[in-house]
């Protein structure tokens, strides 16, 4: 009472300055794509996954055409020249001019992101969870860092590029090395495990290169309640023991209310309206970073918006394209 306790630094960047709130995502022109998951550029066109399909878009504003159809849902896309790699849960398919190229299957629990290191080596992000597991629910309450990045050559050699990662979700090449995002740790590390940027305000998804640096897709905003509950072992134990994972308190992809999911005190509606600044477990956030990973700008869809859970971004013909899983759309944010 008589001596002030030391105030600890906030655990995350606050949504201020370059990360200050706006409604860029909600205002952005959009093209509807049912259940999208990943994007990549191939041959100047944009490939977007839509459930089991991969759609192709040659120009913004055109209707997307079905480019290829698979038997299972597409989870990741990458391209090199006219080779396109497609992650299908645990499976991998590489196509060249419409024909399947034989490629060894990675020893991964699932494929969250893909990247061609060269024409015949593919990097695979393995988040450490199976394709049917609800990663967003599980990752906050999991202390085990079981994620990895594998390198798979067409000839069959496989190597482990990085290991001991906590739920990696995306990667991008940085010179000879890689930058890898960790979802729940809300940070960017390189292949040696060195932390390059920590304390992100959102749960990090995929990362892409832009003309001025990088753009980072965030699946949700970091929530003080979840961060607090992580420090409460009794609560975590009780929740894991007695509640099904889909009802755990966790970041979500959808902004809707459901009777069996919790909310926070500030999220209660007044006069039927959701306040844009209300705390919410789902959020839309794209962070623009410069070449040194310093945040320079951001695009938001706040609590009252619908374009939440941005899972991928890419720089297409100078425009920044983002993919919202909550609204099932690709969004054009303008000059990247």
């Amino acid at each position, binding site marked *: *009472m008589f001596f002030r306790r030391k105030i600890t630094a906030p655990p995350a960047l606050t949504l201020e300055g370059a990360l200050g709130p706006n409604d860029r995502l909600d205002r952005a022109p959009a093209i509807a794509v049912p259940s999208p998951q990943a994007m990549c550029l191939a041959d100047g066109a944009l490939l977007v996954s839509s459930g089991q399909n991969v759609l192709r878009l040659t120009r913004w504003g055109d209707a997307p055409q079905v480019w290829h159809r698979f038997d299972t849902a597409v989870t990741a896309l990458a391209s090199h020249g006219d080779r396109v790699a497609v992650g299908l849960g645990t499976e991998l398919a590489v196509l060249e001019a419409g024909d399947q190229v034989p490629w060894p299957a990675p020893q991964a629990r699932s494929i969250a992101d893909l990247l061609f290191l060269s024409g015949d080596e593919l990097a695979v992000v393995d988040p450490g969870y199976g394709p049917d597991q609800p990663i967003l629910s599980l990752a906050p309450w999991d202390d085990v860092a079981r994620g990895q990045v594998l390198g798979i050559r067409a000839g069959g050699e496989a190597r482990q590029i990085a290991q001991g990662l906590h739920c990696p979700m995306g990667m991008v090449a940085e010179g000879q090395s890689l930058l890898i995002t960790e979802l729940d740790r809300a940070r960017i590390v390189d292949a040696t495990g060195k932390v390059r940027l920590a304390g992100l305000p959102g749960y990090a998804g995929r990362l892409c290169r832009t003309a001025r640096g990088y753009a980072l897709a965030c699946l949700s905003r970091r929530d003080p309640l979840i961060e607090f509950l992580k420090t409460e072992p009794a*609560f975590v134990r009780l929740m894991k023991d007695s509640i099904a994972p889909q009802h755990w308190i966790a970041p979500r992809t959808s902004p809707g209310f459901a009777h069996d999911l919790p*909310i926070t*005190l500030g999220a*209660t509606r007044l*006069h039927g309206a959701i306040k844009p600044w209300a*705390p919410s477990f789902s959020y839309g956030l794209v962070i623009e970073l410069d070449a040194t990973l310093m945040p320079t700008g951001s695009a938001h869809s706040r609590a009252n918006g619908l374009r939440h859970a941005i899972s991928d971004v890419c720089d297409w013909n100078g425009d920044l394209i983002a993919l919202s899983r909550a609204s099932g759309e690709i969004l054009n944010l303008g000059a990247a």
Partner: protein
Amino acid sequence: MTTRTDFNSLPRQPVPRLVLSPRRILSDVLSRGGVESIIPFLALSATVIGIVIATDGYFAASNLRNLAQYSADGGLVILAMLIVVAVGGLDLSVGSSFAMSAFVALYGFHILGLPVPAVLALSMGSGLLVGMVNGVLAGFIGCGALLTTLGTMITVRGIFTLASQAQLVDIASSARMDDLWDWVGFERVLTLPIGFWVLAVVAVLVFVMFRQTRFGWHILAVGGNRKAARNGGIGVRRTIFAAYALAGLIVGIAGFLFAARQNSIAADTGIGMEFFVLTALVVGLGGFVPGRGAVVSVLLGFATIYILNNVMVNSGYRGDFVQLAMGSIILVILAIDVRFRKNRHRLLASSYLDPVALRVAPVQGMDGMMPDQIAPALAAATVLGAGRVDGPEDVLLDDAGNLYCGTRDGRILRLAAPDFIQVSELAKIGGRPLGLAFDAAGRIVACVAGMGLVRVTMAGEVALLTDQTSRSLFSVQDDTAIRMADDLEIAPDGVIYFTDASKRHDIENWGMDLLEARPNGRLISHDPRSGKTRTVCDNLIFPNGVCVTHDGKYLLVASTWACSILIFDLANLAAGPRVFLSGLPGYPDNINRASDGGYWVALAGMRNPVIDAAMTLPGVRRRMSKQVPPTNWLFGNLNIGGVLKLDAAGAIVQALWDAPDGPLYMITSMREHKGALYLGGVTNDKIGRLDLPGADAGWTGAGSYRAKG
């Protein structure tokens, strides 16, 4: 149509007689006003204990009498200083004025040979005169208090010195004796000297003045904020003048007592008194605080300084050492007191929330009726009064079909039948009107959070029925005031039963009550004929909606956080509640009769597995309330809910859910009226109307009470 309720076969609901918790006792003590003087009290206790240990027989009766004898003049001057400081001033002239009054008393007694009462009047007049001069200069003319009283201190001291030198020999050589004079100076009543009794009486009068009288309140208002006091219509200058004058009068009495006891004066009489008095005042008040009339604290501070000083002088320490020691001790006391005062509200805030584990029964009786199993029926409701009613917690319909509701800004509105487009104000109450009901004479009785039970006639006249109930048997904090009157029902015999949802949290902090999950609420009855209010059942968990059963024999009470409905036997309320229904899927709010002999229950929000788990872990909730911003506190899902229909035996037969993005949400009340259900929501700005196919189109809620009553 109605089945008989088998009360005695229902399980008993245990109700604690007493809620005991160290954290609650601490927070209750901290929120009492008297805790302000805890540090002066502890300082005095420490002083006394220290002296008892260190000395031999200091507190013997004879020495105590001695101390009491000499305490009177200092104590009185401190009370005078307190009045001046409370009004926002300062009086440095008390020492000079004290000496002058003593001189005037001796002059009047020995030289003029006046009778003792006249001497007293003269002495008080002298003090009053100095006080009035101070008052005119500081109050009316607006000279600063410091300058003014410094001036009068020097001037009066000069007059005193001149006059006393001229008369000293005559006074000393006077041989006049008087029984009354000696009685004042030396006599004892009940073993204590007269001077001490005078101090005691004046202290009580000043205490009562600050507590109870208009003048005392004006002094505190002016001292607290001069501008606000002026804007509030208080004559600021007049009040300041009167405070100085009153202080002068008390100093005059002190001078008279001194003269009667000592029968002599010296050139140094009253010198340094102002600083001794200010020191004691600062120790008592914990700083130089205007606007506080803390008589007890100040006297505690005085006693501390007085006894410390006395014991050290008696022990034979050198004067300069005594001063050094006194100064250090005072600094320590002040430092502790200032820190305590500064952090009291923090200590209170960090100890106020006192959660307890609450294990809510699992959801039962809802097979096939949960929101993910059936379509949301309330999505089809017609919206009434959109944007024109702010927070209709309860809705009520009269025979003509006019709709009444309370609003967040403290009004009761009428939406005229048949189309409910015309919205007019029936009455302006203030507070936060929640539950509504018609009495037998067709007047509305309303539960108003922050006020109590209020009756409104159809002409808009408002009368307060009750705002307090009997105090709980063991409670540190006075809990007689009804804090959150929530819902009411009028029994067939005319007695009004209503709930006070939380004794510990106001309506704007009602969310804290969920985090606490303690039985903080109570069921209260009010009999309008006798005007008597009494607590029927204390220590219920957020009692909310109230409904008399169709047969008029039982009372249903919703227990919101427990997700259950309790039942009381109106013929035997002392038997306590039994559980009518438990394991509701959400948080029940109001309960009302249905036309088919069943009941409607509003679910303000829904439970979910995570909040149910958190309710069993009080430590998690308490730490959350400290470490997480309030907007991010885990909470029951109030954005989705609905209405349940019960049959007469308490089985759930129908569920009407609102859509997750629908116009209606957080349903807090519903009334069936002529084949339709009217729905209110405490945070919504609209009322819903849902047609009930197959319901009795002639049935009205008000009519169902008249038929039985």
